């Protein structure tokens, strides 16, 4: 039973073109990165999950931003000198879950449906696919989050007259900076989606990454854990986001533009891992 069929030697191949005799009349053109970008743009705009997640994101950001502005206007803020722009952070933090979901789905839905095999048959270069997905997803989420954050910031500064006025640097961080940070967080989700290859699993992991450090830190009462607690408090993702708005949850944490550097570094490592994994694992 172990002796395989003995194959007869094949007749020598007839001379001629290597790939058979058929030549397509359609002009040959080598596809490049631009073609992959166009393809990913078609993919991301032709599924409903994109519309849904981005729609919920906009509703959350604008709705919560408006709600806070109305509440602040109605109530006396007392003596606190919290910058006005910080109140946009709550909508963005909740909205980040939508961006995470979209980032994960951008790649894991291809694994879930088996589409990835069709995609990689049409383009054997894994790196090109991953890069095109990353660029398309990053630009979409960056534009939408930046636009939403700008709108909320304008609303809140207009409706809440008292408190310290934000500087131009504060403005830039609270709009473009926040857009970049959240889009990068989504890109990290995309990388995790490529590594995990399972939508629900990857989304759960990413929500854990966002929320768990802060929740854990709240329960670290003992003195021996105080160092770790302070670190988690300062560098958890919500803390980094609030730092971008010019406020700090705890004093030794990141300030100014530092948050962007941290998230970009983590995302770069994760994307590198995703690239290696895509290239070496069976699909």
């Amino acid at each position, binding site marked *: 039973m172990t002796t395989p*069929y003995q194959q007869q030697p*094949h007749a020598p191949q007839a001379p001629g073109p290597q790939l*058979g005799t*058929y030549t397509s009349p359609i002009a040959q053109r080598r596809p490049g990165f631009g073609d992959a970008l166009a393809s990913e743009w078609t*993919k991301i705009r*032709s599924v409903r999950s994109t519309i849904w997640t981005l729609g919920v994101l906009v509703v959350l950001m604008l709705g919560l931003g408006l709600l806070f502005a109305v509440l602040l206007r109605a109530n006396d803020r007392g003596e606190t000198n919290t910058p006005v722009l910080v109140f946009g952070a709550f909508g963005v933090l909740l909205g980040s879950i939508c961006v995470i979901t979209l980032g994960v789905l951008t790649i894991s839905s291809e694994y879930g449906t088996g589409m990835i095999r*069709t995609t990689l048959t*049409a383009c*054997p270069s894994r790196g090109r696919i991953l890069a095109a997905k990353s660029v398309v997803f990053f630009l979409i989420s960056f534009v939408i989050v930046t636009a939403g954050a700008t709108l909320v910031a304008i609303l809140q500064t207009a409706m809440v007259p008292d408190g310290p006025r934000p500087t131009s640097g504060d403005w830039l961080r609270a709009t473009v900076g926040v857009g970049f940070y959240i889009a990068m967080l989504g890109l990290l989700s995309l990388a995790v989606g490529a590594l995990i290859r399972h939508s629900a699993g990857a989304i759960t992991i990413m929500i854990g990454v966002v929320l768990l450090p802060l929740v854990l830190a709240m329960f670290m009462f003992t003195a021996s854990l105080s160092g770790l607690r302070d670190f988690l408090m300062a560098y958890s993702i919500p803390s980094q986001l609030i730092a971008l708005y010019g406020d700090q949850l705890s004093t030794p944490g990141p300030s100014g533009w530092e948050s962007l550097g941290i998230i970009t570094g983590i995302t770069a490592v994760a994307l590198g891992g995703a690239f290696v994994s895509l290239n070496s694992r069976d699909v």
Partner: protein
Amino acid sequence: MIEAVGLTKRYGAKTAVHNLSFQVRPGTVTGFLGPNGSGKSTTMRMILGLDRPTSGHVTIGGHPFRGLPNAPRQVGALLDAKAVHGGRSARSHLLSLAQLAGIPARRVDEVLGVVGLQQVAKQRSKGFSLGMGQRLGIAAALLGDPQVLLFDEPVNGLDPEGILWVRNLMKQLAAEGRTVFVSSHLMSEMAVTAEHLIVIGRGQLLADMSVKDFISHNSADFARVRAPGTDPAQREKLTSALTEAGGQVLPEPDGALRVTGLPLPRISEVAHEADVRLWELSPHQASLEEAYMRMTQGAVDYRSTADQKAGLQPAVPPGYAPPPVIPDVPQQGWYAPPPPGQNPYAAGPPQAPVHPPLGSDAVRQPDPQAPARPAPRPPAAPPVPQAPDTPAAPTTPEDAR
């Protein structure tokens, strides 16, 4: 031209494909046959560079798939009809693939026309039937107008009109000088579509030859002989006479005899000498299905057993005898043995009857509930292995189709 050399794929301890070497040449439809789990899809995935072979390599036109210049214009594949995002419309799906491969967008409408999906091009593919999914997959394979085409089970779920269309499409593509590699379970379909066959079982090559050679190598033609049905003694007499004359005789359930090893005129003479009249003497040529079943019978991984329904049946009322059960699953060991040295698998499984043959007392005895039961295999009895060692009630392959 697809060329595999020593292709091996292991998943942990399980070897899916073992040392597979073959060539698929342009200009003909090459069929890829094998039982479920024999490694057909794994081989297809390795050809497309989706799975990495554990050892060996496979090339298309001299290049590994991932090293092909402009792969989507040279190779098209249908791997799985459901390998699409269900939320995307058929046209968007094809458009994204066309853009990825640098193919002009109007080609999308062309292939939608070729597969007949223009009407539903704007609908989301989630609502597609399996047949429509297959058409969409074929459209994706044809998108780049490639020289090499791979189809994994392309006719699954298609209606008769669709099957005919796929058959003609394959032939036409091959006639244009392309390499067409098609896997299928449907023997009857392969018999009329493919000219060349590659057969694997348990991940190893069983045959690589033309359909015509495959049938003649793996099937012994037989003669069906029928003695007058009124007299069992006549049949006994004829059986012994034919056996004496050097033929192999197998009884069929309806009373006919299947004779191999004797030409038709000789059978007639033997019957005449034995003074037995014949009601039927007909030649039978084996089909591709028969040849295939016999070749792969030792290499089948997933074999069905009889549904015993043990313990689920109500008690049989006294005096009630259920109707006799005649299994219509093809019985292993029924087909005549292949020519020696041709097929290492066919000789493997036990062929000799372990249980007493049909009609002997030993089978009837162990059923206290219905002593007079005529059924050869009482349903409440402990499970009797259906295959490979029961020669009871053999069925003609015609029934198995």
